[in-house]
């Protein structure tokens, strides 16, 4: 991450003015050049240091210690990497990693494919489309607990989905209670909740595609689908990349829908890594093991985050 040109420019002005400039005059040549500006960020930095960064260090420290409810606050004995060895040797971690991966792939497919198609459908300012968008933004704004409970009811054994299948003569499916289906059902609900965001993001990108290009292609005889896939799709690829990265990160942070829909069950068949970490810590009260799994999942998220920071560097204007 490099300092942008604006800053570099500032620096030259800074040095140019420096020789012979009395200290008292310092403030007169610009708000941005006073070190005082940085003080405005201090309260937030202190706050985050205590309540975000310090807990992160604690998490790492926990993962190399033996922490039980009795010594949750302190007095942790260093146990080296034995927690990590234990975690990697347990089949559970790999099962959860696999479940997380399936969940993420389903979410990616839904966000990119359905997101792209729906965004194309809604990419103009018609009244009816505005209405559809409003509903979708509202769904995006809904708390995951609300969404999770609505779908828990719909997917329930005698819920509406099974009832409807029954009318069509199809045997009812144990959507949330069967180890084969649970993770897919959770992925479906998470997709339902995140597609609106994907649609809005892709739609905004589609609207920024220069109309001349699209018109030129149309004059050359390209049909609507050809324009969508061969003109628009390549032009909005940066947005799709960012969306894909955000989705992967979301997938590896997935917790709320798992918690509300299945509590990781049946057994641990739908426990994603964050859920597994949480369960180890707060159900089994094995805080070290929870912290270890959390750290493993987090390392992955941070790697994806760094890729994200690179991909969106231009937008971030750092």
């Amino acid at each position: 991450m490099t300092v942008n040109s604006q800053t570099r420019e500032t620096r030259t002005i800074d040095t140019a003015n420096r020789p012979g400039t009395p200290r008292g005059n310092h403030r007169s040549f610009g708000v941005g050049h006073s070190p005082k500006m940085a003080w405005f960020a201090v309260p937030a930095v202190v706050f985050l240091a205590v309540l975000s960064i310090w807990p992160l260090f604690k998490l790492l420290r926990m993962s190399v210690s033996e922490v039980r409810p009795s010594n949750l606050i302190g007095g942790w004995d260093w146990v080296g990497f034995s927690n990590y060895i234990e975690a990697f040797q347990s089949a559970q971690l790999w099962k959860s990693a696999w479940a997380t991966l399936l969940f993420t792939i389903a979410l990616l497919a839904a966000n990119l494919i359905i997101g792209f198609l729906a965004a194309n459908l809604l990419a103009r300012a018609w009244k009816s489309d505005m209405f559809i968008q409003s509903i979708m933004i509202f769904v995006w704004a809904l708390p995951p607990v609300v969404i999770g409970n609505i779908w828990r009811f719909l997917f329930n054994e005698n819920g509406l989905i099974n009832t409807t299948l029954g009318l069509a003569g199809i045997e009812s499916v144990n959507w949330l209670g069967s180890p084969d289906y649970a993770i897919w059902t959770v992925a479906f609900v998470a997709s339902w909740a995140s597609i609106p965001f994907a649609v809005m993001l892709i739609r905004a990108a589609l609207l920024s595609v220069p109309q001349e290009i699209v018109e030129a292609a149309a004059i050359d005889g390209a049909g609507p689908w050809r324009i969508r896939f061969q003109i628009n799709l390549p032009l909005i690829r940066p947005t799709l990349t960012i969306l894909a990265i955000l989705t992967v990160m979301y997938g590896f942070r997935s917790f709320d829908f798992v918690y509300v829909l299945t509590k990781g069950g049946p057994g641990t068949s739908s426990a994603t890594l964050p859920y597994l970490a949480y369960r180890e810590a707060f159900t089994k009260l094995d805080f070290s093991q929870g912290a270890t799994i959390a750290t493993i999942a987090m390392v992955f998220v941070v790697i994806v985050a760094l890729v994200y920071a690179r991909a969106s560097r231009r937008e971030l204007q750092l």
Partner: protein
Amino acid sequence: MNPGRSTVGGFISRAALVFFYAFPLLWMVMTSFKSQSDILANPSGFIFAPVLDAYQTVAGDAWPAIINSTQVALGTTTVVIALAVPAAYGLVRSKHRIWARITTLLLILIIVLQMVPQAMAVIPLYGVLTQLHVVNTISGLILADAALFLPFAIVLLRPFIQSIPIELEEASIVDGASFWRTFVSVVLPLARNGIVTVCVMVFMLTWGEFIYGVTLLSVPDGYPVSSILAQQISLYGTEWNRLMALAVLTTLPILIVFLFSQKRLSEGMLRGAVK
């Protein structure tokens, strides 16, 4: 290129999308008006006499929880705004040699912090709040939520502050105002749009947050409404009409926020992600 509107495919796709997104919401509202006997006889029936029974049963739990949620959401929004606005301002305007680098580092740190899975932060946070003697209190939950949403708020506010012409601040300084005075009387009014957007987003996110709620505030009469909904305690387990009534009550504040600020929400949703 004008595909879609008149074609059958376009119409069917739109209808399917509306159904797919509107029906579950309607189903929640419909179910909440079913009586206990209707729900036991057939949880998926479409024909029933709407009654308010479920709401009456739920009200006793819901009302204190909604008050708790309101306290938590307003408290968190206040703390986040009080910290995020000056921070975003300081980070945007620090062009001084050394600070420019530190600012960049801080921004990277903030972005990384934003990525930390919440379910993981909660494990050590429990210990930290215990040390600060605020575990199981509303203030503790507010601190945790504020730490969760502060990085997001700073990132969201940055572009709003960047769009303020620096000349206005310089004029104010030249006229003899202090940095603080300039911030309060020049920057704050000009950043109003951004501040309102961040308020709306943080309020909404805090209202729905439940992981910290169930873990860091585990005293039953302190529960925010989202925690009750998340835990599905026995009263609501399979009493779908009651559960849906509670879900409707949880949704109402979001609906109000949505009706008044849909534009800000969609703006916040896109800006918060990409920038």
